[in-house]
């Protein structure tokens, strides 16, 4: 985060003519930090699943956790998200999108899971068999 801020000032005069002084394209250091973190956060889940050293549930938690952290890493170091770019509107749009995505994903999975379990054809067959 600090790397993304420190590289902003030297180039700010450069982008003035584009009319968005708060935009930055990152620094070499920032990209390398992001890349390093991404490699680690990709290697860990792949290694865990391919070797299967941990129990399935623990592996699943770590895999999803690593993905969540890596998405944040990409947002900060590659997409240069911050609360100030474009007057804060990119962040507002992102938060709005995340809310919609969470509602849709959680809602779909929740409703369809219950639909599947409650309308399972085997449910009736076991009752008939019993």
């Amino acid at each position: 985060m600090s790397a993304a801020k420190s590289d902003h000032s030297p180039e700010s005069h450069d982008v003035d003519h584009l009319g968005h002084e708060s935009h930055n394209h990152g620094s070499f250091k920032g990209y390398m930090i992001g890349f390093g973190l991404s490699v680690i956060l990709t290697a860990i889940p792949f290694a865990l699943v391919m070797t299967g050293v941990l129990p399935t549930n623990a592996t699943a938690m770590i895999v999803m956790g690593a993905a969540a952290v890596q998405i944040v890493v990409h947002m900060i170091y590659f997409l240069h998200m911050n609360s100030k770019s474009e007057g804060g509107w990119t962040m507002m749009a992102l938060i709005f999108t995340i809310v919609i995505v969470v509602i849709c994903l959680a809602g779909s999975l929740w409703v369809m899971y219950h639909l599947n379990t409650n309308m399972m054809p085997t449910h009736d067959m076991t009752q008939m068999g019993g």
Partner: protein
Amino acid sequence: MSATAVQPASNPIDDKTVFYLEEEPHHEEGSSTMLGFWLYLMSDCLIFAMLFAVFGVLGGNYAAGPGPKELFDLELVALNTAMLLFSSITYGFAMLAMDRNNVKQTQVWLAITGLFGLAFLGIELYEFGHLIHIGATPQRSAFLSSFFTLVGTHGLHVTFGIIWLVTLMVQVGMKGLIPANKRRLMCLSMFWHFLDVIWIGVFTFVYLMGMLR
């Protein structure tokens, strides 16, 4: 009746003070492009969220056909992930070269990015070809339909990203790093990194979680 009704309505309009701008605020050409493109990416994000939701719901319906464990080759997926991650960092280097106004370096890094993108597409098409060859076509089961739709949509985005990248390389070659071209390169930068973010979701939820199912 009608006169009394009109009278009170017209009064507030007369009293209201109206302000006009003496001069329209000046907006530089393309000053809102980045925000507009970000909003497009967010809407694209919603498309992928829906496809992820579909895969989440149908991902376990194999219709007595092959499942992830029989179909997926994680080493190939890891290689694919590496290609996309490398292309992300090389695009970052292209942006840094653009900031230094170095046309040649920008072009070289863009070309390398394009090659990594092509490698990614090649591996994905090889995987798809292999799956279809062994009979795991989109028609086989709901799992495979949703798999091909989700991963194929991402692959289609990468394809268009590469076409856009080649177009911009021609543009930069013809006109140099003019402000308009810089703006376009910044848009493609967001698009390219965004596709990498989507791929994190794909390899996590489709491939890795699929192997754990």
